[in-house]
Structure formats: structure tokens, C-alpha cells
């Protein structure tokens, strides 16, 4: 088991390609040997990834590739068979407060009687705990500020079921902003979202990067990968590649990841191997 790595170099080869060799302690999020299975079929197998700090990182792969599972296993939401995870150089678990999660929108009950403001306040739970006062000036202005960043400040008292899909997504992003974390994990943040919201969310994520935070997003739209993301991780149960976008986002890697699932014409627009 790797304990608090300080100056450790890790270089490995998968099908002849080098994966990014960042010192583990310097990665925003570092995963080694992660394996997860639901029942008997493995969903993730022996995944090693280092997500670099202060970058926008995408996780891509076909359906069922284990992309959401990777995020959930990192956070401890699904149990892992093996593997260890480091957050900013420390074993994850103690400082989980430094990582914020924006889950997929699908599983919420939209009739739940909470307002937009209530949802964002949930992001402050780690700061206020069971009994802390949420009504202090600091916390109220924090909630306002997070909603303002996503353009939803006028909707504070609206019940969440009265919002459009894109607006709901913005609110959940605001909730994670309230946590003031260093690393943000987003599960398909642009799925089913209108163009205006996509633009608004990208702006927020880029502002996070400017503030020296790390953004890691499971992304579903191949066409926008090199436009939005600095670093890309291709996954299909096993790691295919993980590197800066212009290194890893190649025809060859996409073929490994998606198998026959993508036609050549779809892959044509993407970078050629250098």
C-alpha cells in the first residue's frame, strides 16, 4: 500500500503509450489499482490515473465504461474491490471536505419541498454541522454569491420543481461551489442541458480553474472535448489513456476506447496521432 507519497515517480506503459507521469503527491486526485464490480462483472479494473492540478479534466468512454463509477468509488459512494485514492497528496477520507461532487440530475424527486436557496445551503453542511446557524451574514452572502455565479440569484425562493432542467443543473453546481473545495467532480454536467446553460456552466468551471481549483468531469460529448478540456482520460472498464488533450485525444485511443462503436467519419474531426 502506498502511504503519503512525497517524491514518487510512476511511469507505466499500456499498449505502448506512456501515461502521464506526475508525482503522485502533486496530483489533484491520484488513483492506483482501482477495481470495482457490481456483483460478478467488473465495472472498473485496475485503473491508475493522476488528475493534474488546476486543469479542466474530462473522463470519456462509451456507456457502461465505468466513468460514473470511477467518481463514485473515489468518493466512497460505491464500495471498491481494491485500490487507493489520494487527494492533494493525502489518503482520501480525512480531508474529504476538499472535494465537491455534482451528481447526475436524474435521481432527484422534483416535488421535494425545497427551494433553490435550501439546496445551496446543503453545500454548507460541512461547515455548519448539525446545529450551526445558517442565517449568519457570512453564510447568507455565500449562498447568494454561489447562486449569482451561475446566474440563478433571482430564483432563490423558487421550489426546485419549478425550474427548467438547465436551471436545476446550475443550482446543483452552485451547491458544490458553496463547499469551497479544491477539486470538483461532475457527472455529465452538460447532459440534457440547453445551450445557454452549457455556456454558463463552462464559464463557471473556467473561473474555478482560474482560481486554482481542479475540475474533473465525466463528459458525454466528444465534439467539445478539445474545446473545453486540458486533460482527458479515456476509460472502458480499463484505462485506455490519460494525458493532456492533444496527447491522449487521438484516433487510435478513441478506437481502443469505443471499439467499433464510433464510425470512422465521427472520428475524422479529431486529432491525428502526433
Amino acid at each position, binding site marked *: 500500500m502506498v502511504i503519503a507519497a512525497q517524491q514518487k515517480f510512476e511511469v507505466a506503459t499500456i499498449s505502448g503509450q506512456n501515461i502521464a507521469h506526475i508525482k503522485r503527491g502533486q496530483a489533484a486526485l491520484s488513483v492506483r489499482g482501482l477495481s470495482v464490480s457490481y456483483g460478478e462483472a467488473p465495472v472498473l479494473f485496475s485503473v491508475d490515473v493522476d488528475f493534474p492540478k488546476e486543469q479542466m479534466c474530462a473522463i470519456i468512454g462509451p456507456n457502461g465504461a465505468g466513468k460514473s463509477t470511477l467518481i*463514485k468509488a473515489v*468518493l*466512497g*459512494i460505491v464500495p471498491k474491490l481494491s485500490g487507493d485514492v489520494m487527494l492533494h497528496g493525502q489518503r482520501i477520507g480525512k480531508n*474529504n*471536505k476538499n*472535494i*465537491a*461532487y455534482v*451528481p447526475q440530475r436524474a*435521481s*432527484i*424527486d*422534483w416535488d*421535494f*419541498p*425545497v*427551494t433553490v436557496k*435550501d*439546496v445551496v445551503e*446543503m453545500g454548507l*453542511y*460541512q461547515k455548519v454541522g*448539525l*446545529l450551526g446557524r445558517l442565517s449568519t451574514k457570512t453564510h447568507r452572502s455565500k449562498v447568494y454569491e454561489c447562486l449569482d455565479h451561475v*446566474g*440563478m440569484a*433571482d*430564483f432563490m425562493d423558487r*421550489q426546485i*420543481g*419549478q*425550474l*427548467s*432542467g*438547465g*436551471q*436545476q443543473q*446550475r443550482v446543483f453546481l452552485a*451547491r458544490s461551489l458553496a463547499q469551497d473545495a479544491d477539486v470538483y467532480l461532475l457527472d455529465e454536467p452538460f447532459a*440534457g442541458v*440547453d*445551450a*445557454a*446553460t452549457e*455556456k*454558463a456552466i463552462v464559464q463557471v468551471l473556467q473561473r474555478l480553474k482560474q482560481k486554482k481549483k481542479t475540475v474533473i468531469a465525466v463528459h458525454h460529448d466528444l465534439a467539445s472535448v478539445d474545446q473545453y478540456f486540458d486533460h482527458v482520460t479515456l476509460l472502458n472498464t480499463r484505462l485506455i489513456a490519460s494525458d493532456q488533450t492533444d496527447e491522449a485525444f487521438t484516433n487510435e485511443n478513441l478506437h481502443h476506447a469505443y471499439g467499433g462503436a464510433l464510425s470512422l467519419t465521427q472520428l475524422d474531426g479529431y486529432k491525428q496521432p502526433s
Partner: protein
Amino acid sequence: MIENLIEIILFQAGYNVSLVLFGATILGFVAGMAGVFIFLQKRALVCDALAHATLPGIAIAFLVMTFLGGTGRSLIGLLFGAALTAALGLYCIDLINRYTRLSEDVAIGAILSVFFGAGVVLLTYIQTLSFGGVAGLESFLFGAVAGMLLEDAYILVIGSGFCLMILLLLQRPLTLISFDRVYAHSLRLNIRFYDLSLMMLIMGITVIGLKIAGLILIVALLIIPTVAARFWSDNIGFILWASAIIGGLSGFMGAALSALLPDMPTGPIIVLICFIFFLLSFLFAPFRGVLAQFMKQRQFQEKVHRRQGLLALGHNEKIYDGLTLKILSREGYLRKDGMATPLGQSAAGKALLEEKRWQIFRQMSVHNSNVKGFDELEDIANFLTSDELNQIDIIIDKQNRVI
């Protein structure tokens, strides 16, 4: 009779009765509040099974205590037995869920009936035994305020108060978990602990409420106040307290009336009072009640006529419909000769713009299934963020320039 009732309500009818009244109020209060989480997690059926599973425990506890030489009347002992079999029932439901392919409601129904049936058999057996005073056990079915001893009342007050404190303490994490379990997990909340705590709380409320409301109907005290409170607000904080107050009032009035009519079991009275609160909320709550919905229909009709009328003005079409004419002239948009006033002209211009904006929005959000709450007769600016509205206006601008 009325004087007696007033005496009871004002806590003048003796220490015993007043204490019971106080306890019933607190019980209703905490049951109302806890019921909100049950409602939100959609677990009402499990609570009913839990309540029914207490019956064999009561019977067994009675037998054990009598066997050990006591009178078998100690409330603490009986409630302890009740809690044991209730917990066992819950565990069995969990086992069935985990190791069989049966759906949860089947598991719940099975446990409910089997445990309750066993309890009835035991109760009937106890009746055949030679020691009297067995009627005391039957009071656990429907609740009986009359004949409550002082120590029973103390158990009621202290038990309910304790449950209330725990509930208030855990209110925030319980809300978080009920709303978004996965996110709560990511915040490192111990989900299992809180799930267990909620179930223990429900068990505590159920067991303490056995003497007051009875095991068959205690679930109503958990569910109905929440449902009634839901009509009044979309705000979880408000609903928690409203539900608690409705529950508390139901407990209070139910116990008071029951003290007045000692032959009537308490449970059904409490439930009927809960139902009255529900009915009042269902009919008269603003925005969400039935009456409010009726009035909204009329408002809606006026909105449609106003919008159609303004659009007609904007297109320079003549208006024939009587209600439309009435609404437009009432709001100062129309002159007596049927021509638009300056106010009417600008309102018409606005209406045309809003129509265009909504049309573009509809085209843009074809894949957006969650826009059911968007009222297209209102200003679209109320529903969109400023950047979303901007996008739409840019498109309109482009279209205008093409023309």
C-alpha cells in the same frame, strides 16, 4: 359536558389527566415532525408494519412478566416487548429484501400480517387464562386514555420529549439524506447511522404512542399531519413545523375528547381530528387547496383573454369577444370606440414580444422535459436567467434584421 371539556382543555381536570394531555400533545408533535421524513422517503408502509409487529411482543411480555411473578401490567415491560418484536419485524423485512427477489411491499405486507396474526392468537390465548385484567392488553389496539396510571403518563411525557430532542438534533442531516442520498454520501455523512436513527425514532414514537393511539392507528398520526401540512407550503422548514403543530393539536384534542368520553377508544378520535385538519387544508389552503385551484381557473381564463386581446390589438384585428373587450377596457387598454389607448398599444407591443420569446424558448428546449411549471401567459423573464433571456433576444434580433 361542555364545562367538563373546558376544564380538561385548560388543564384543570386533575394532575393525571393534565399530564396525559400534555404527553399526548408532545407525542403528536414529534410524530407529525418525524412523519415528514417518512413521507419524503416514501416509507409509510414500513411504519404500519412496525406498528402491527408490536402486538406479539406485548403479549409475550405480559406472559413473561406474569410468569416471573408480577402482574403483567408494567407499561415499561410491555413496551419493551413491543419494541423487541417490532425490531424483529423490521429485521425480517430487511432480510426478505436482501435475500429474495420479492418486492418491498410484498415483504412489508407479509411481515405485517404474520406478526399481527401471531399477536392476535397470543392475545386470544391470554384471554383464556384465569388471571383477569386482560382487557388492559386490548387497549393497545386502539388506545385508551382512560385508566392511564400516573407512571404511564410520565413515560409518555419523558419518552416523547426525548424523541423530540433527538429529532430536532438530526433534522438537518435527515433532510439532506431524504433529498439527495448520493450527495449526502459524498459529504461523508454516515447514511446507515441516520437511516437507523430515523427507524429507531419511529419505533420509539410508535411504542410510546401504543397506549394513546393504539398500534392499528398510530401510523395515521405519522402520515396525515404531513400530508395536511404539504398543502400549505413548498418550504421544508415550514412543513416540518406545520406538520408538528397539526400533530400536536390532534393529539391534544383527541386526548381531551377521549378523557371526556371514557368508553371511546382514543386512537380513532385522534385520527378523525387529523382528518379534519387534512380536509380543511385540502379545501382551503391558498395556492394548493381545491378552492384556490378553482379561483385560479377564473384567473387563468382572464389571462388568456387578456393575452389574446392584446395580440389582436397588436395585429390591428377587430375584437368581438365580450369578455375580452371587458377585460381590456377595464385595464385601460381600450377606448370606448374600440381603438387602443397608448397604454394599450405598448401593452400590445409587449404581448407580441412575449409571444415571440416563448416560441423561441419552446423551440430551444425541445429536449427539456422539466418545464411544466412555465406559464406561457406570464412574462418569460420571470422564468429565465438573464443570460438565457439574452440568448433568446439575440435570436429575435437576428430574425428582425433578416426581415
